[in-house]
């Protein structure tokens, strides 16, 4: 059987689906009429993504201004250029994808899971290339402090990002949560790179990268909770 024949069968079957009742169409039109008013479309993707990157940079810089730029001062020029330009590019990609997640029918360049995977991989490779001191000291205790600091700075970045895109509509709240969490996690990593003077390779590879993964997981949980909250509110109404 050729594809054309299948197309024809499907087309005929679709033509047999009964029409929508005129009364239903009228009911739909009547239900939207009372709230008809002009609405302002969302700005272009690059404008919103630019806003998100600025928010993330602002939160990371504010956090480092409070905690100290110890890490940044200890870095050489190559480390500074490579780390912050990479974080900037990743934040731009994550910001663009977050905007796409909040606009139905947008073109997706990368899925939420792949974005997180790619982001983590890029960070691991970059840190492995730049830091070679594999000696470890207080690996867990110091690492947990960095993880907590990073995630605590990711939370306000995530909240402010959501505030900027609050007029959007996520067709998949879990996926949007992962992308928002990844973007917020990059803020946490940025802050740690500015502040943390511990250049032990394993510390940076494990704990700084874990901020990205932890933050994305937190975003997924918030997205999932949001899905149930919206449904419960709808049921109550």
């Amino acid at each position, binding site marked *: *059987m050729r*594809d054309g*024949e*299948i*197309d024809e*069968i*499907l*087309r*005929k*079957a*679709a033509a*047999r*689906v*009964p*029409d*929508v*009742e005129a009364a*239903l*169409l009228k*009911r*739909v*039109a009547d*239900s*939207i*009429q009372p*709230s*008809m*008013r*002009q*609405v*302002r*479309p*969302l700005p*272009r993707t690059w404008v919103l993504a630019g806003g998100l990157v600025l928010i993330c940079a602002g939160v990371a810089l504010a956090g480092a201004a409070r905690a100290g730029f110890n890490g940044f001062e200890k870095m050489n020029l190559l480390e500074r250029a490579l780390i912050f330009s990479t974080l900037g590019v990743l934040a731009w990609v994550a910001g663009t994808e977050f905007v796409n997640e*909040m*606009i*139905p*029918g*947008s*073109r*997706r360049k990368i*899925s939420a899971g792949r974005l997180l995977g790619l982001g983590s991989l890029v960070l691991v490779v970059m840190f492995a290339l730049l830091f070679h001191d594999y000696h470890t000291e207080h690996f867990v205790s110091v690492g947990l402090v960095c993880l907590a600091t990073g995630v605590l700075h990711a939370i306000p970045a995530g909240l402010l990002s959501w505030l900027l895109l609050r*007029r*959007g*509509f996520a*067709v*998949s709240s879990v*996926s949007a949560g992962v992308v928002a969490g990844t973007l917020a996690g990059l803020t946490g990593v940025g802050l740690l790179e500015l502040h943390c003077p511990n250049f032990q390779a394993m510390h940076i590879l494990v704990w700084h990268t874990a901020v990205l993964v932890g933050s994305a997981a937190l975003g997924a949980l918030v997205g999932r909770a949001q899905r149930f909250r919206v*449904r419960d509110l709808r049921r109550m109404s």
Partner: protein
Amino acid sequence: MHLDSNLEMLMARYQEGDFTAATVLVERISPQLYRFFVGQFSSRPDADDLLQETWLRIHRVRHTYRPGEPVLPWFYAIARHVRVDHYRKAVRTTAREQRLEEMSQLAAPAPGETGKGDDLEALLAPLSESQREVIEMLKVAGMSLEEVARATSSSVGSVKQKAHRAYEKLRERMGPMRLRKGQSEEKS
């Protein structure tokens, strides 16, 4: 192409608060969305409810459509969200009432039970949920691969792969169906 640009123009006027444009959009888009819901095994009352719910959601988030962007993927992405939401709720309710057996029958009806073997629901029955929606959008709604990818939040490659696998399944199913039909025509 002309129809699409016409829809985009209507959508822009809808955003400006033009009720006439909104009514025309409801009349133009609803039959497509209705077929989409029916093709996903929704009963007629369910499809009616889903259509109304979709339009309420469309109305609430109409500012998220940006002029110049293709309009059909925007409509279908919202319709798909409403359908998935409805399906999850149905599964949850059914699980609560411990009527999973009935639900599985509802989710995959046998061709003979849905009416004619060549009904849209019956034809799409052997396909997975994601394959059904891809075929529905591509072949019934006449959307492009790019538009389907946008509506389903996936890549063009993934849409192509789903469509290819769906056609393999449809070919397996429709071959014997056509043979039986030919035999019955010969007898009569």
